């Protein structure tokens, strides 16, 4: 049984989303990363999930803004002012 101040696999798993979204406090991150150093199963799962998110981010990167959109927006704002 893990000691009360140590992060368990269950807790690590529950914090996966918050960790990847950078929503944990520095203390929570430190406890979690300590666990990841000691548990290869959790470390592999975390690494995989992180890579998956980064890969999706890269693949849906910004598509080019149509050349006339900025002008269209300016014209619409001009019209709105009048």
């Amino acid at each position, binding site marked *: 049984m893990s000691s009360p101040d140590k992060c368990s696999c269950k807790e690590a*798993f529950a914090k996966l*989303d*918050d960790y990847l*979204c*950078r*929503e944990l406090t520095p203390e929570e991150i430190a406890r979690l990363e300590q666990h990841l150093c000691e548990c290869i199963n959790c470390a*592999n*799962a975390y*690494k*995989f*999930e992180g*890579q*998956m*998110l980064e*890969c*999706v*981010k890269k*693949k*849906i990167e*910004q*598509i080019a*803004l*149509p050349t006339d*959109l*900025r002008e*269209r*927006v*300016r014209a*619409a*704002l001009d019209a*709105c*002012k009048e």
Partner: protein
Amino acid sequence: MDRDKFESLLQPVLDVAYGYAYKLTGNQEDAMDLVQEASVQAFRSIGTFEEGTNFKAWFMKILTNKFYKSKARAARTGPTVSLEDAEDLFLYREAEKAGVRGTADEVLDKLDQESVQRAIESLPEEFRVVSLLYFLNDFTYEEIAQAAGIPLGTVRSRLHRGRKLLQKALWEMAEQRGLVSAAKGGVA
């Protein structure tokens, strides 16, 4: 706030706003209309924007609301991934079963940009909105909550479930393209 100041805030977010609008509506013309209408609405409502706060999240909220009320939303059809939840760590476990160990890149690198895009498009709308706000803007939970107009707890649960559904959709896409074969075990 004067027009110049407004434009100095608006212009830097137009690229990402257009990308978001495109992925919500699924086509260029509706996306351009949506960005234009949201810009006009934002200009008219600028008095409600608190200077020094997050303009991008504020603008994305207007754009999201415009999308919810738009004809483009009503007209949008297409296959959606089954709402039957995938298990947690779905892709990780499937990849492991298929003999892909250690790296998500090995599976996802084989999927082209269009396939990943289609997997995101297949998410039911409530999950697509929060997922796009996360992937495109790298928003925090709070910024997503503001932009999508939903409570923080709902952001957390929709991101979690959206991520599982996305993994399921990505895996199905990889299987359809013959990139992985879980039954046989291995990466094609």
